[in-house]
């Protein structure tokens, strides 16, 4: 094994002195000599010198001057930090939705062709929206649930528009991990509560889109929408 | 020494983990029938005659509903068609040819450099023509289904009458191997669905085997080249491993 003292690297200026101690202690590596071939100050010495120069060396050795300078350093540092933040923010914000994405605003849906008991899926902002025409029985089921039976308590009335209670309109994305639940087509499984069933992890929603079973933490959200006529809505 | 059992246990565990973690490829219910594929195994190659018959079936049956958007007519060289044959196949269809001098879209006969013509201009048209169901693109279908070629073959031969206790949705067919057993595609192949020019008897099983061979080729046209290259590379690596190990033994002989 190569011993330290005849190491190949008598250049402490090249490698930081910090590694020197550790390497020397282990007896090898990162290559530093313990022998100094000239009275050149080591890295640590230089650091110490420069620090002391900036702290005391200029003019006033008094405490007052030091604290003023400390304050100035603090303010300068804070200003630099604010400046850096101002540069970084545009980069961060550039990752938020851009104008063209935001502009894909609204979708109009004609409700006329949707029979009672049927639902359709429309795409809004890249998300599927379930528009479902509920039967009388389904409306009653949704309204009769007591809030204490719900893990995310919400009345049915809060989730539909007054006077249009046969229409339930929800974002068709499971609140668990973003899958699209089944149940819009009559041939789909709808789960025990007659609403929607998520095939990914088995969450079940009722006819008001409220979670009734499974890992989903919240009800299917209701997107912003308005009735333009009795048979036409605008989402977004 | 405890080293050896530990190493063995670990390797066993690692392999076990690998196998356990690999996606289960078998369909959940019915066991897929075993078929002897020409392209199976480390030395497998495509049975080109079978693939050509399969292409005939694709042309006459599948392509009425299914697209194969990743393929070009020129690719048919891979199943042994000659340049003249490929030109003829391509020219037999009309493809969109840009616009004429008045800006109106025109059609022209296909060329070898054209994509396979799709039966429908878009997904909506395909759905509308097929009772709401979308016939999937067949380019990589063999890779896109659990069970691969075996599954596709099983699907072709798996049509049957539904069990008495099963309620079928309107317009759906019963298939033993389709997940859920209700498939929107009517049985595509029967005995004698096509007339083979090479004298092969067009039984359902033969047709299924041929069309799946064609689909397997379409999904993995590089398979033969890949396996042949693999054999050579592994032989080379075995030799290199042997040599390296010999050098290692020699170098370490004075340490042990």
């Amino acid at each position, binding site marked *: *094994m*190569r011993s330290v003292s005849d190491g*190949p*690297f*008598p*250049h402490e200026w*090249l490698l930081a002195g910090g590694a020197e101690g550790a390497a020397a202690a*282990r007896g*090898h590596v*990162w*290559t530093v000599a313990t022998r100094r071939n*000239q009275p050149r100050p080591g890295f640590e010495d230089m650091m110490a010198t420069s620090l002391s120069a900036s702290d005391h060396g200029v003019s006033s050795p008094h405490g007052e001057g030091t604290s003023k300078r400390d304050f100035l350093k603090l303010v300068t540092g804070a200003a630099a930090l604010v400046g850096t933040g101002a540069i970084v923010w545009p980069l961060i914000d550039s*990752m*938020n*939705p*851009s104008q063209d*994405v935001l502009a894909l605003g609204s979708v109009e849906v004609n409700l006329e062709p949707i029979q009672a008991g049927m639902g359709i899926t429309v*795409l809004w902002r*890249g998300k599927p929206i379930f528009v479902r025409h509920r039967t009388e029985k389904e409306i009653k089921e949704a309204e009769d649930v007591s809030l204490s039976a719900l893990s995310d308590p919400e009345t049915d009335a809060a989730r539909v528009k007054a006077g249009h209670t046969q229409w339930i309109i929800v974002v068709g994305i499971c609140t*668990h*991990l*973003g*899958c699209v639940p089944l149940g819009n087509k009559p041939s789909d499984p709808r789960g025990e509560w007659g609403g929607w069933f*998520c095939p*990914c*992890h088995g969450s079940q929603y009722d006819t008001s889109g409220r979670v009734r079973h499974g*890992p989903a*933490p919240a009800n299917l959200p209701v997107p912003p929408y308005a009735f333009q006529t009795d048979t036409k809505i605008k989402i977004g | 020494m405890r080293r050896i059992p530990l190493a063995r246990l*670990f390797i066993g*565990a*690692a392999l076990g983990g690998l196998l*356990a*973690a*690999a*996606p*289960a490829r078998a369909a959940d219910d019915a066991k897929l029938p075993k078929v002897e594929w020409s392209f199976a195994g480390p030395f497998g190659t495509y049975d080109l005659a079978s693939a050509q018959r399969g292409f005939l079936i694709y042309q006459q049956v599948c392509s009425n509903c299914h697209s194969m958007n990743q393929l070009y007519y020129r*690719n048919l060289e891979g199943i042994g068609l000659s340049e003249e044959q490929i030109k003829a196949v391509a020219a037999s269809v009309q493809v969109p040819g840009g616009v004429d001098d008045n800006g109106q879209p025109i059609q022209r006969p296909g060329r070898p450099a054209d994509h396979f013509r799709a039966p429908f201009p878009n997904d909506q048209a395909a759905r509308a023509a097929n009772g709401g169901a979308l016939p999937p*693109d067949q380019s*990589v279908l063999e*890779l*896109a289904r659990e069970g*691969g070629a075996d599954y596709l073959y099983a699907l072709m031969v798996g049509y049957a009458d539904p069990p008495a206790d099963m309620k079928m949705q309107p317009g759906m067919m019963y298939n033993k191997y389709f997940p859920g057993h209700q498939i929107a595609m009517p049985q595509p192949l029967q005995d004698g669905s096509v007339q083979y020019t090479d004298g092969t008897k067009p039984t359902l099983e033969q047709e299924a085997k041929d069309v799946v061979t064609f689909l397997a080729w379409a*999904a993995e046209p*590089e398979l033969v080249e*890949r*396996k042949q*290259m693999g*054999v050579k*590379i*592994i032989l080379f*690596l*075995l030799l*290199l491993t042997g040599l*390296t190990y010999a*050098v*290692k033994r020699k*170098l370490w002989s*004075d*340490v*042990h």
Partner: protein
Amino acid sequence: MVGLHKSEFKNPLVRWIDTRLPVFTMMQNEYGSFPTPRNFNYFWNFGALAMVAMMIMIITGIFLAMNYVPNTALAFDSVERIMRDVNYGWLIRYVHMNGASMFFIVVYIHIFRGLYYGSYKTPRELLWMLGVVILLLMMMTAFMGYVLPWGQMSYWGATVITNLFSAFPIVGKSIVTWLWGGFSVDNPTLNRFFSLHYLLPFVIVAVVFLHVAALHITGSNNPLGIEPKGPQDTLPFHPYYTVKDSVGICVFLIVYAALVFFAPNFLGNPDNYIPANPMVTPAEIVPEWYLLPYYAILRSVPNKLGGVLMMFGSILVLFVLPWLDTSPVRSARFRPIFRQLVLLLVIDVIVLGDVGAHRPEGWWVVVGRLATTYYFLFFLVLLPVVGKLERPLKLPDSISKPVLGGGGPLPGGAPAKPMEKA
């Protein structure tokens, strides 16, 4: 002349460079004469193997990027074009695709090695923590890479994983929107994932450099877990371990080639050959095999936020591992109880992987919860307690001395042959 390095190299060009920038001396010290414990077993190959896997990934990735198009309308087709029309494109893509699996296999064995032989213990804590950073970066890179082909599993995997951040209260939703650059996984998401997938490997290279630098400060651990006491305990890295690593690399390449040439899609998911469709969720969303154990932990917790925290916690706990293990003895060879527990942990993680591949129903839920419990029990309870209670076996005096007085694997006290400085 003052300041020039005294080079020992004879070749005039090498010498000219080396006197000005002693990179050759550095290589000689770090990979040539570097004193390495003489008793490594083949588990010590896996660091070098990881390095090889990483370079293969970077090289193949650069060439793939020349033909890949990060656009939702074109990504799937561009990958198929690589497979069909680009010369040897199928080879480059299959090497890259399976390279991810090989990289993870190798790194997991490397981590197990560190765990079993106590390589994380003082003074190698920082070395270990840098390794955990590499693992995290690898997972991020692999996840984003899996999104790029824009198949069904790409899309839904991205949706499920990015949605994890929505579990955090208040800021969760904004974070997810920010990650997506929209209101769902879409073109902006694909673009940024491609950008980051290209960037992160070079960050990994930088951290690997620190990992190796830290290794060369402390020196390597070894199967006995005791420090070398002198030259008789070590061998120069070259040629002894360069050739031993070469043997491992050859075996690694054989396994790798078998996968690439004969079963390139064995570890993949068929659903990823179906183009992404935001309107159709696959019946089952599973990540790549190397992420399955974490996925199992996520799904074992009934509470969404809890699951997410546990999943992140399962990796973050590795950061504090050096301080959780209270035993001063490194190698499991001399820790009979720890040895059983750590082997059980390996089985536990494999079981978690299996659970992650299955729908969380029936007894899979129970098994998943038990396995998750053991995972955390091992790190948070068993390690600190066993370290205090366990009676370790007697440690050998030195690497070259016979183990426990009996005939060990190495001739007792045989001095290492003095090596030429090659």
